[in-house]
């Protein structure tokens, strides 16, 4: 919901002069004005109309959702069947208090603390070939943020097969540390973007760690932003 109460340009230079943010409605208004002031009204209106699904809310998905919320993407559909585990905290955007909670619900609360004006749909369920259409059909972009290789392949295949108009942004290959310049963005055809290095998996001794995972998540969020606003991913 976007609430536009006045057209006056707010002076953000002296933050102490802001009125107190006592209600969520005030927060949403002030955030809208702040985002328009920062990004420009035209850009913000385009972002507000976007509907992005984030499939998987782990290292990639939780960080993507936070970044898209910060810039004011209007609607997010968040999908994950799993709960927050303490071993997730080395890279996933959750806090100690969330351990044991469903990722969908934990992330919903976190995102509301950033911008309660974002419309969020939570689906605490697995994505399978038979649920791709009902769960994803209302989104124009899907972030493939799973962590198991055959599930990642399945999701890309099934979206290409069943919902070919949707653009997929996939993260593939981000384990370990360093090798920053190996992380890149590739476009395949017109509807699939691949972020990551394409080869660093968790098979073997490599583990996923925050710096490199969040690098890949940022690439994915940046590609989403450029798809919404137009421009080179």
């Amino acid at each position, binding site marked *: 919901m976007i609430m536009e109460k006045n057209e006056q340009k707010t002076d953000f230079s002296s933050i102490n002069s802001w009125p107190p943010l006592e209600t969520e409605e005030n927060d949403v208004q002030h955030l809208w004005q702040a985002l328009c002031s920062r990004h420009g009204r035209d850009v913000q209106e385009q972002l507000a109309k976007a509907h992005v699904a984030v499939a998987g809310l782990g290292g990639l998905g939780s960080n993507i959702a936070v970044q898209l919320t910060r810039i004011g993407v209007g609607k997010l559909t968040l999908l994950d069947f799993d709960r927050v585990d303490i071993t997730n905290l080395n890279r996933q955007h959750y806090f100690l208090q969330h351990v044991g909670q469903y990722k969908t619900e934990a992330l919903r609360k976190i995102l509301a603390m950033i911008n309660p004006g974002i419309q969020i749909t939570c689906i605490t369920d697995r994505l399978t070939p038979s649920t791709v259409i009902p769960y994803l059909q209302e989104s124009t972009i899907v972030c493939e*943020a799973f962590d198991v*290789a055959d599930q*990642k392949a399945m999701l890309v295949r099934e979206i290409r097969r069943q919902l070919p108009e949707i653009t997929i942004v996939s993260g593939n290959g981000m384990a370990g540390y360093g090798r920053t310049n190996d992380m890149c963005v590739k476009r395949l055809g017109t509807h699939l973007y691949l972020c990551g290095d394409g080869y660093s998996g*968790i098979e073997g001794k490599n583990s996923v760690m925050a710096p490199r995972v969040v690098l890949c998540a940022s690439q994915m969020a940046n590609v989403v932003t450029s798809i919404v606003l137009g421009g080179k991913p």
Partner: protein
Amino acid sequence: MVRLLVNGNSVEIAEPISLAHWLESKGYGIKTVAVELDGTIVGPEAYEAIILSDGMQIEVVSFVGGG
């Protein structure tokens, strides 16, 4: 000789073989790839039946774990 375009690169194979055979020969995991043939996604159930022929354009993405 069968001439293919694989991920934008020209590739030649000696004789027409199935897509499944070709994927295995290149070390791809059947369950961890997404394959498009001439712009259309192909499911794993069809890999055995598809015989590679001259001019085919193949896009293969191989997924690894982690995310």
